[in-house]
């Protein structure tokens, strides 16, 4: 986030007071929600072109996982990457400006929605090819193991990618070499427009590593507390023993991309999740129930988040277009 939260700044997420952790999570999840809503609006206004895959509904996963990360750990995911970037602490302005294709974008407009990186924050993309990032994330783990640096690769994929072949090549390699990788399967129930039941012979996706001796666990991906607790255990396992799989049961509220009207599921199904399982509402209720925050303090967070997102949108709308001279840079290292 634009404002690094206290727990994260100290690299002490595990030991920070519980209410700090949960308030951080609330702020971070809300930031992703509001950012994505605004990105959807900008797309509708024609300010964002191409593909735009929104993370709305899945916020608890990126945020809960990030709370178990420490500096030096890496994150890699596929094309639904905006939420992961914000959770990793990347400035919303440069993410939004990449979406609008401006020179101030994190890839100066040469990456776009699906291909954004921040080496500084340990975020290694942002990959457009379904499943490819799983092998790359395994390679990040290889590097960590080789350098014996204690870092862990957080390698995300969806319930669609889990049916791609390279995923299993990499599972095998990771367990064979005991690489420090946490594989996070974000099971949002739909691989583009095809449900898990219609695309997978085994729908319990956490079992997909069992034949490689990779343990797996199913987690309520709509509950940031559950995600965080599972993440802390999984990261410990990865650092000390080797790869592990977390299957996050979640749901995406929007279509696969902005151009998907999502006719493969009913309005009622979406509304049911929105009203009963929403990860932000869930955490808000918990904060209020446990007396960790009142209406006024939550309102304050809402206001701050809205301001940051509005600033990011304004920045992304008004930042200059890319310089055409940039077309030919960074193909190879400039001599």
């Amino acid at each position, binding site marked *: 986030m634009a404002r690094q939260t206290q727990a994260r700044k100290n690299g002490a997420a595990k030991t920070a007071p519980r209410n700090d952790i949960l308030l951080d999570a609330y702020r971070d999840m809300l930031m992703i929600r509001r950012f994505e809503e605004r990105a959807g609006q900008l797309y509708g206004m024609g300010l964002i072109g191409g593909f735009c895959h929104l993370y709305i509904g899945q916020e608890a996963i990126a945020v809960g996982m990030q709370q178990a990360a420490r500096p030096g750990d*890496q994150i*890699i995911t596929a094309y639904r990457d905006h939420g992961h970037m914000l959770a990793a602490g990347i400035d919303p302005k440069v993410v939004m400006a990449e979406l609008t294709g401006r020179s101030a974008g*994190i*890839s*100066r407009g*040469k*990456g776009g929605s699906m*291909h*954004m*990186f*921040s*080496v500084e924050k340990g975020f*290694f*993309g*942002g*990959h*457009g*090819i379904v499943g*490819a990032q*799983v*092998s*790359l*994330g*395994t*390679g*990040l*783990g*290889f*590097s*960590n193991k*080789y*350098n014996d640096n204690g870092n862990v*690769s957080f390698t995300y994929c969806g319930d669609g990618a889990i049916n791609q*072949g*390279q995923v299993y*090549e*990499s599972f*095998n*390699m990771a367990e*064979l*070499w005991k690489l420090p990788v946490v594989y996070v399967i974000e099971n949002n129930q739909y691989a583009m427009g095809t449900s898990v039941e219609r695309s997978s012979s085994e729908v319990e996706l956490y079992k997909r590593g069992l034949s490689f001796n990779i343990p797996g666990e199913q987690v309520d991906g709509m509950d940031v507390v559950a995600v965080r607790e599972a993440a802390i255990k999984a990261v410990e396992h990865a650092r000390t023993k080797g790869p592990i799989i977390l299957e996050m049961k979640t749901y995406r509220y929007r279509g696969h991309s902005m151009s998907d009207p999502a006719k493969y599921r009913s309005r009622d199904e979406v509304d049911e999740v929105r009203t009963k399982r929403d990860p932000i509402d869930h955490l808000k209720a918990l904060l209020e129930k446990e007396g960790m925050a009142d209406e006024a303090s939550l309102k304050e967070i809402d206001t701050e988040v809205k301001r940051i997102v509005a600033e990011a949108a304004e920045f992304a709308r008004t930042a200059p277009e890319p310089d055409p001279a940039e077309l030919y*840079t*960074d*193909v*190879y*290292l400039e001599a």
Partner: protein
Amino acid sequence: MAELTYRDAVARGIAQEMARDEDVVFLGEDIAKAGGVFKATVGLLEQFGPLRVRDTPISEQAILGAAMGAAMTGLKPIAEIMFADFLAVCYDYVANEIPKARYMTNGQVKCPLVIRFGGGGGLRFGAQHSQCVENWCMQFPGLKVVSPSSPVDVVGLMAAAVRDPDPVMFMEHKGLYATKGEVPDGEIVDTLGTAKILRQGTDCTIIALGMMVHRALAAAERLAAEFGISAEVVDVRSLVPIDTQTILGSVAKTGRVFTVEENPRVLGWGAEIVSIIADEAFYDLDGPPIRITSPHIPLPAADLLEDMVIPSVDRVVETIRRALTS
């Protein structure tokens, strides 16, 4: 100075770089304990240990994925894809991932890795283990592509490839592994993007790569001895970047160009070179550039048939003689 085989030069080149830089790791199928399916990596496991020289599962996508992930985080992997043909199994990494990382990230992510593979025919392996796949690699901005024809070039270009800040596709020719050549002692570091004129001539330029370099040289000897034709032979060595200066300089001198390509005709590397010559040196030409290639068919296995497909010394001599004397 020692006489080395092309296959021993591979191990020497890799060892030279691994000894110099601990960030260089080497992974592939059967490369360590077995010493490589072509015995080109014998001794590396013993010299550098199993952490740096790693046998992998037969999983080409995982190999290149691991290599790229490692390269993005500061290592300099050399990944072997045993047969060039198998690049198709992991083509996503060659086409979509590795070459585009630097560009898509505004230069934040670097992929300093080498993918080496044995290509080429003449060994009766048939259509799926014999291809020359330079053009599978050349078409992606972000990749560099080299193919050495001699042991000394293997060592020097390997060093240059490993030290290069960008990904390099390193094609060895399987038909050359047993060939020998003089290799100086001590460190050898060549330069990517440089062609070599291996034989001076005045009547025509023969541009060749890999095993075809040897056939071009043999053809040039016969053209001189039997027909009095003086052929200059250029070993392209590096397709991306390409040494247009050397190529165009030779064309300006001789006025006639022949490419000798092992690949099937359509979109072979020679087509790209001929197109450059057409753009840049049209008025230096005394006749049409002629491409001597394999026909556009899969490579057959039987010796009689395979020998009909790949350009032979006879075919090179005959094509050039006819073009220059008619």
